């Protein structure tokens, strides 16, 4: 595993300078504007997240940061460099995990890592050393000589992540790193990402998963329809845009129609979703009693901590999977 992070050239390194600074970034595809004026900063050593539903513009943003997609307008600076003129230097210091795995199908697992290291001008011996370490790191050591296509989706994902680490990047971009992984593999990956962060790697990731953002991100922005709708630490966002607890109840279909007005006397924020009703409260158990006192029969109920999902619902009026 990369234990040291590449030291960076002195002229761009100041302890406080942001690793990524974006001001009023827009991205137009034909007549359609996918990113509509987004500004953010990523600080050295932090884990920064883009959270948002399908089509929000997360991948478009990530591609702009990875310096392969020019912004239509706005200014971006990565390591203090301009991606329009210094794309190659920027990419040399960055690791990228794209949303869809684009592994080299004509090569074996190990060769995928070896050649990727060579693209970064590493010596063959160094490539072999790093490839071996990284395959162990993502638990694919025993598949080194296998072709890529028979690997399972989760294995491919892990290989793509290993590949992005070949160059010991200072900045790692992960576009939905855990999509398609089973829960156990997800937790293993979170742990790996955590270790990278401890080593000083700056992480930028996108996700639709609130728990992932909550687990990994120091700061995040919620993106919706190409714009940032909220910004802060996970805890901060929950504090500002949700309550401590959420009561989820399921009621009979016949009751759903009038439930919103029936619950209004409780004076709590209420969301009626197709399959359940959410009540935002600082004391879920008490609220459940109150609901029952109103004479409403619940089929099932659950009190949980509120999460970023609730924040998103609050901010956009939609659940993440709409």
């Amino acid at each position, binding site marked *: 595993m990369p234990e040291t992070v590449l030291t960076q050239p002195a002229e761009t390194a100041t302890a406080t300078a942001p690793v990524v600074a974006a001001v009023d970034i827009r991205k137009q*595809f034909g007549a359609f504007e996918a990113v509509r004026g987004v500004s953010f900063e990523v600080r050295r050593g932090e884990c920064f997240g883009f959270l948002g539903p399908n089509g929000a513009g997360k991948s478009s943003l990530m591609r702009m940061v*990875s310096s*392969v*997609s*020019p912004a239509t307008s706005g200014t971006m600076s990565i390591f203090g460099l301009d991606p329009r003129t210094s*794309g*190659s*230097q920027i*990419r*040399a210091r960055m690791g*990228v995990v*794209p949303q869809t795995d*684009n*592994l*080299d*199908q*004509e*090569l074996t697992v190990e*060769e995928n890592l*070896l*050649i*990727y290291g*060579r*693209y*970064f*001008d590493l010596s063959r011996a160094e490539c072999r050393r790093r490839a071996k370490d990284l395959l162990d790191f993502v638990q694919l050591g025993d598949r080194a000589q296998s072709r890529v296509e028979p690997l399972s989706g989760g294995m491919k994902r892990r290989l793509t992540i290993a590949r992005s680490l070949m*160059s010991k990047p200072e900045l790692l971009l992960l576009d939905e790193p855990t999509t398609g992984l089973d829960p156990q593999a997800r937790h293993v990956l979170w742990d790996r990402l955590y270790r990278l962060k401890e080593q000083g790697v700056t992480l930028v990731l996108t996700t639709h998963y609130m728990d992932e953002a909550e687990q990994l991100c120091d700061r995040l922005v919620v993106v919706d329809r190409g714009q940032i709708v909220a910004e802060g630490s996970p805890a901060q966002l929950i504090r500002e845009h949700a309550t401590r607890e959420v009561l989820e109840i399921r009621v009979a279909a016949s009751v759903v129609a009038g439930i919103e007005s029936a619950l209004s006397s409780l004076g709590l924020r209420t969301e009626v979703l197709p399959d359940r009703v959410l009540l935002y409260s600082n004391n879920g158990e008490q609220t459940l009693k109150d609901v029952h006192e109103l004479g409403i029969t619940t089929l099932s109920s659950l009190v949980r901590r509120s999460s970023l999902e609730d924040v998103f619902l609050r901010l956009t009026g939609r659940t993440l999977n709409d």
Partner: protein
Amino acid sequence: MSTGLLRIAPHIPLRVRRSTRLVERSIMVYRRTWMIIVSGFFEPLFYLLSIRIGFGALIGDVEVDGTLVDYAQFVAPALMASAAMNGAVYDSTMNIFHKLRNAKLYDTVLSTPLGPTEVALGEIAWALIRGLIYSTAFLVCLVALGMTSSWWVVLTIPACALIGLAFSSFGMAITTYMRGWNDFEFIPAATLPMFLFSATFYPLSSYGSYAWVVELSPLYHGVALIRALSLGEVEWSMVGHVVVLGVVSVIGMRIASRRLATLLMT
């Protein structure tokens, strides 16, 4: 990326080194299937044997610039030039299209320090290496079958490389405009007439007042070059052929790397 020679000039060593990484990748891939490359060695042998046995006996000598030449010796260099064209076209169209659209190889490569120009250079370099193996085989057969009459023939190797460069650059440029596999049907529509009408089977003089049309074909310049070297009739006017192929190469490469940038860096 590269908006002028002056701007790229200082980066040339770095760019060249970086583009060799794609050659390295191709070697990794073909290491397992080297038989494909070896089998290519037999093709020229069959070609040359067939014209020597067939044409050579049927058709006597042809007159080229006042001297009589054995017909098989006249056609063989033209076949060598055409083979260099076909190999380059195949490598730079179908193969590149697959990597560009289906395998998304270049999307991966562009997340590294390599840029579109390095991709174009690297893939063209690989096409040239394959071409080199093939034209060496051709040369060996030419000499072994006694179908050449001059030591100048050794220079057919760099001449074939130049033909390869011109056609693979141009082929790659065209490939970036292809929308799907159907569009590849147009390629033989361009290469077949070139093969038939580039003074391949009869001298330029037999085209009469249409000779200028033949001179528009880049392959004609390749054929003329290789034929002169093989027959040992070297003269200064050959520089013109070299220039034509060089210009086609440079234009093709510029278009290819620009188009790759627009396709991949959206």
